[in-house]
C-alpha cells in the first residue's frame, strides 16, 4: 500500500512534464497551459506608467528601480521622432536656403563695392569667432554622426567602419564640448554690449532686413538680424552646453530620467542651432556681397557698411576711420608699407 502511495505521488508530480512533452511533439491535441508563476508579477511591473522604486542592497542612483518604462518611451521617441524630424528640419532648411538663393541670387551692394575700407573686428574677436565656429562644426558633425549614424551611415559604411567612426565621434564630441562652452562664454562677454536691442531694431525686422519693400533697413554696428543670431547662439548654446555637461558627467547623482530628458533637449536644441547656422553661413558667404571680409580680414567695405549698418557707417565717416583702397592693400601686405595707423588703433574708436 505504501509503495502504491509513493507511485501515485511520483505519477502526479510527473504529469505536467509528460503532458508538456506530448504537446511539444505534436502528439496530443489538447494544449495545456502551464502558467508561469511570475507572469502576473512582471505584467504588473511592465504595465506601470512610471518607474516604481523599491529597495535594493545595491546603493546608487536608480538602483531600486527594477524596470523603467520611461526608457522605452525615450528610445521610441529618439528613433522614430527625433531622428526622423531632425533629418526633415536640417534637409528642409538647407533646401529652403538653396531655393532662396536660386530665386534671389547673391544680394549685391547697390553701385558695387567702393574698395574703401573700415575696420570692424579686432584680431581677438575674429579668433574667438573662428574658434567657436570650428568647434561648433566639429561638434555638429560628430553629434549628427552619433544621432543619425544608425539610420543613415550603417547602411552605407557597414557596422565595422561605423563602430570606429562612432567611437571616435563620441570621444571627440565629449572632449570638444567644454571648449565650445568656454568659447561661448568668451563670446558672450566680448560681444554682449553691442548686441543689446535698441530703438530702431524693430524697424529693421519689419523691413525684413531690407528684403521686404524697397526702403532701406537702418542698422547700427550690429543690426537686428545679427543681434538675434547672437542671442540664439548664446542662449541655445548655453542650453546645449548645460544638457551636454549633464550627459557627459553621469556621476553627479542625476538619474536616468534626467539623462533621457537631457539627451532629448541636447539633440533637439542642437538640431535647431545647426539649422539656424545654415542661414548664418549662407548670409555670410554666398548670400550677401562683402560680408565675409569682416571676419576674414577685420575690414569691410564702407559701401557694405552703409548698406547694412548705416548708423555705424556714419560714425566711421565722422571719425575719419575710412581708409583708401591703396592703404588697405598695403595693410594686407600687397604693396609697400602702410601709411595708416595699425588695425587695432584704427578700429577701436570707430566701433563706439
Amino acid at each position, binding site marked *: 500500500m505504501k509503495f502504491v502511495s509513493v507511485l501515485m505521488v511520483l505519477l502526479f508530480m510527473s504529469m505536467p512534464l509528460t503532458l508538456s512533452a506530448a504537446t511539444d511533439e505534436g502528439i496530443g491535441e489538447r494544449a495545456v497551459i502551464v502558467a508561469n508563476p511570475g507572469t502576473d508579477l512582471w505584467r504588473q511591473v511592465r504595465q506601470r506608467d512610471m518607474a516604481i522604486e523599491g529597495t535594493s542592497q545595491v546603493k546608487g542612483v536608480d538602483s531600486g528601480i527594477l524596470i523603467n518604462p520611461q526608457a522605452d518611451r525615450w528610445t521610441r521617441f529618439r528613433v522614430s521622432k527625433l531622428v526622423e524630424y531632425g533629418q526633415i528640419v536640417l534637409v528642409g532648411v538647407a533646401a529652403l536656403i538653396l531655393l532662396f538663393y536660386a530665386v534671389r541670387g547673391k544680394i549685391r551692394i547697390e553701385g558695387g563695392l567702393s574698395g574703401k575700407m573700415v575696420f570692424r573686428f579686432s584680431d581677438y574677436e575674429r579668433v574667438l569667432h573662428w*574658434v567657436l565656429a570650428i568647434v561648433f562644426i566639429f561638434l555638429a558633425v560628430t553629434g549628427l554622426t552619433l544621432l543619425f549614424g544608425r539610420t543613415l551611415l550603417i547602411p552605407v559604411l557597414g557596422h565595422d567602419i561605423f563602430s570606429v567612426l562612432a567611437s571616435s565621434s563620441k570621444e571627440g564630441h565629449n572632449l*570638444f564640448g567644454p571648449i565650445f562652452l568656454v568659447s561661448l562664454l568668451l563670446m558672450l562677454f566680448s560681444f554682449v554690449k553691442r548686441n543689446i536691442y535698441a530703438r530702431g531694431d524693430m524697424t529693421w525686422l519689419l523691413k525684413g532686413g531690407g528684403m521686404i519693400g524697397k526702403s532701406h533697413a537702418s542698422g547700427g554696428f550690429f543690426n537686428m538680424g545679427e543681434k538675434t543670431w547672437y542671442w540664439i547662439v548664446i542662449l541655445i548654446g548655453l542650453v546645449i552646453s548645460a544638457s551636454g555637461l549633464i550627459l557627459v558627467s553621469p556621476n553627479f547623482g542625476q538619474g536616468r530620467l534626467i539623462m533621457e530628458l537631457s539627451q532629448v533637449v541636447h539633440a533637439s536644441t542642437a538640431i535647431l542651432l545647426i539649422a539656424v547656422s545654415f542661414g548664418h553661413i549662407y548670409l555670410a558667404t554666398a548670400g550677401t556681397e562683402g560680408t565675409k571680409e569682416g571676419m576674414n580680414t577685420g575690414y569691410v567695405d564702407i559701401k557694405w557698411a552703409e548698406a547694412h549698418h548705416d548708423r555705424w557707417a556714419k560714425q566711421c565717416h565722422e571719425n575719419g576711420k575710412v581708409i583708401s583702397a591703396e592703404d588697405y592693400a598695403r595693410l594686407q601686405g600687397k604693396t609697400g608699407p602702410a601709411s595708416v595707423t595699425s588695425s587695432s588703433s584704427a578700429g577701436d574708436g570707430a566701433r563706439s
Partner: protein
Amino acid sequence: MEFIDGPLWYFSLTVFTIGVIWRLVPLIFGKRTTDLSVARGSAASGAVKTVFSRFIPHKGMASQVSLQIIAGYMFHLGLFAVLFFAAPHVRFLDEHFLGFSWTPMPHWAFIVASQFAFLGLLMLWLHRVSNLVTRLISTTGDHVGSILTFVVMLTGCLALLESFEELRLLHRFSVELFLIYFPFSRLMHTFTFIPSRAFTGAWFGRRGINS
C-alpha cells in the same frame, strides 16, 4: 597595419633622431667669430637671465600680446602634460624606450590638459592667419606644422577609448608623419628655444645690454 607599426615607425624615428642632431650640432658646437669687444658684463649670467626672462612678456608689450601669451601657455603646458603624463603614453614610453615609468595623471586631468592644448593651439593658429603681421611672416611650413600637431592631438584623443586598433594606428601614423616633418620645420623650436635665448642673452650680457 604592420607597415605602420614596423618599418614606418623605425624610419620616422631614425629621421627624427638624425634630423634633430643634424640641426642641433652645428648650432651648439659650430665655429663662431671671436667677439673682440671689451666685455662690459657677464655673458653667462646674461644667457641664464634671458633664458628665463623670455618666459614673461615685456611690460610694454604685455597688453598687445596677451592673446598669444595666454594661448601659448595653454597649448604648450597642455601638450607637455598630455605627452608625458597621459597613461597610454607613460605605458608606451616604459615598454618601448625607458624600461621604467611614473605615475600618470588621472583621466579627468588628461581631458582638461588636452582641452587646454586644443583651445590654445586653435587660438594660436587662428591668430597666425588673422593678424596682418603674423599672416605675412608665416610660411606654408608653419601652417603644416600647426595642422600636423593638431591632427596628432586629435587622432590621439579620438583613440582615447583604446578599443579600436584602427584608431590607434591612425594616431601612430600621424605621429610618424609628425616625426618625419619635425627636423625640417620650425617645430625644431622645441629644442632650439633654449640655445637661441642663451646665445642672444650671452651676446647682450657681454655688451651690458639690459633686456
